């Protein structure tokens, strides 16, 4: 057997690192320009994109470039946190479902079917409404509506692992269930967990933007991408196209990059599930 570091894979890894760097840049610079993003200055309002203001300015004279960066940074942060929590919920519920026996398994499976049976956005609206339509409603909503597929996958994996030789031996030796899970199974679940986690980011970000756009998430003072885009609607008719186009393009770029990172990780860590 010949081992080669294949050219194409090297390229993929390089692009992955580049994406991570870009995202970090956006994250940090957006956070840093929070204040600049909120500065209003009526003398420069409604300006089309120029060298000084590459994304133009809005009706309050705010620089759209820093606004967009700040908004993206916010979305990325929320996306990462909610995806992380959601994955942990998926791991816990998936594991419990696979280990604690038929009753628990049936209950959790029924819960998954129920949550997946109600249209996603509607559920997000309901949860947001339940939490008072603010930031916490947004976060809770996203966390509790994204864990299901990953939970199913992990549950399947753990059930398969349960049948494997070394697990059965450990059980016979009297090792506790929790120990078996953490010491023997988790290392095997790791690749799928990480890939699942990273692939949740783009979904979380898109849903956060959507819900905020509808008016259910962050308050209008925050420069969230959803807010930026929903407010831009009024001014599109009067010709300020830059208010919607640039923030959207950058949002798509960020989502595509996260997607790319997730899929490349899958290719590298778990080649059997990767369909080229």
């Amino acid at each position: 057997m010949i081992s080669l570091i294949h050219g194409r894979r090297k390229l993929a890894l390089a692009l992955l690192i580049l994406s991570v760097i870009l995202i970090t840049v956006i994250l940090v610079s957006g956070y840093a320009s929070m204040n600049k993003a909120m500065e209003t200055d009526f003398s420069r309002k409604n300006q089309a994109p120029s060298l000084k203001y590459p994304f133009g300015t809005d009706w309050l004279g705010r620089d759209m470039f820093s606004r967009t960066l700040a908004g993206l940074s916010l979305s990325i942060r929320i996306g990462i946190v909610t995806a992380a929590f959601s994955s942990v919920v998926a791991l816990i519920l998936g594991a419990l479902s696979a280990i604690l026996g038929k009753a628990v398994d049936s209950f959790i499976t029924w819960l998954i079917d129920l949550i997946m049976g109600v249209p996603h956005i509607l559920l997000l609206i309901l949860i947001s409404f339940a939490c008072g339509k603010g930031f916490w409603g947004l976060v809770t909503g996203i966390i509790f509506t994204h864990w299901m597929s990953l939970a199913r996958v992990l549950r399947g994996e753990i059930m398969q692992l349960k049948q494997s030789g070394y697990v059965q031996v450990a059980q016979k030796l009297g090792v506790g269930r929790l120990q078996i899970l953490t010491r023997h199974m988790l290392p095997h679940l790791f690749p799928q967990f990480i890939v699942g986690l990273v692939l949740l980011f783009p979904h979380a970000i898109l849903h956060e933007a959507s819900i905020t756009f509808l008016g259910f998430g962050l308050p209008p003072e925050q420069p969230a991408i959803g807010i930026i885009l929903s407010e831009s609607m009024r001014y599109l008719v009067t010709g300020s196209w830059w208010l919607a186009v640039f923030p959207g393009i950058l949002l798509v770029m960020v989502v595509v990059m996260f997607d790319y990172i997730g899929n490349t990780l899958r290719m590298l860590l778990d080649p059997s599930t990767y369909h080229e």
Partner: protein
Amino acid sequence: MKTGMKKSITFLAKNLIRLVLLLLCASILAFLLVSLSPVDPLQVNVGQAALGSLSREQIKKLETYWGVNDPPVKRYLAWAKDFIRGDMGVSLLYRQDVSSVIGQKLAHSLLLMGSAWLISGIVGFSLGIIAGANRGSFIDRIIRGYALLTASTPAFWIALLFLLIFAVWFRIFPIGLSVPIGVEEGFITLTDRLRHAILPAAVLSITGISNIVLHTREKMIDVMESEYVLFALARGENKRSVVFRHGLRNVLIPAITLQFASIGEIFGGSVLVEQVFSYPGLGQAAVSAGLGGDIPLLMGITVISTAIVFTGNFTANLLYGIIDPRIRRGAEK
């Protein structure tokens, strides 16, 4: 009774029970969530300033109207009892029966979602087949790239772009609503309705395509790598024949499941798209209900939309059982 018929009736009955249980649980979940809400409907819909100028009796009347003071279980049971009899309550925002509000909006939504469902299904299926049959080729990469791009783009932004390009810059299509403003009911033609639905439908189709393309492509690849395709090639069939004689038929069955399962996603997309185009469908009603605390309407929409999604999946299972000879003939044994 023939075994086949008996099995069909059992199948239908089982699914009916599943539907009822699902709707029950969904409504309980929804009700639980709305009861938890700290949102004061009075604040939202009447406004702080107005509240300040109302007398205590008037506030009390409003509170009873918005159902603020009853305990939750009592309220749920009352709601459920009425719902079963067909009375979905009265919409607090629209001041009409929830059933008639939903009825009107459902009609608009069906036009929108229906056309988007058809278009995204047909186009998505075709693109998926082409991509899967020509795996690795240039056209496959383009189709895949397009699907990935669309999947990464929020539906409401595509809607904004379309609004910008077609309604503001080129003025081909109207900016919003479902009918021309200021025109009397009797004078609204079918063409008017269609014109107003075109942009939202186009946007919804575009967003719905990506999932269908990617999944159809995967299924097509599975088929092209199957043993029976290998044997077909070994028997001298050329690729085109393989795709049409074996590929289409074998992908069709999972594709149908996919297509009906995408109904839920289309509904989600419609919520966003209707908002941008101010199209008066069910999605836009859900948003208004959520923002305004219109609980009866929210409950009604939850139940109806969950039922629609369930029906979609159920239809997929039904068709599967009819089309796939392995299930159809297997069942008769």
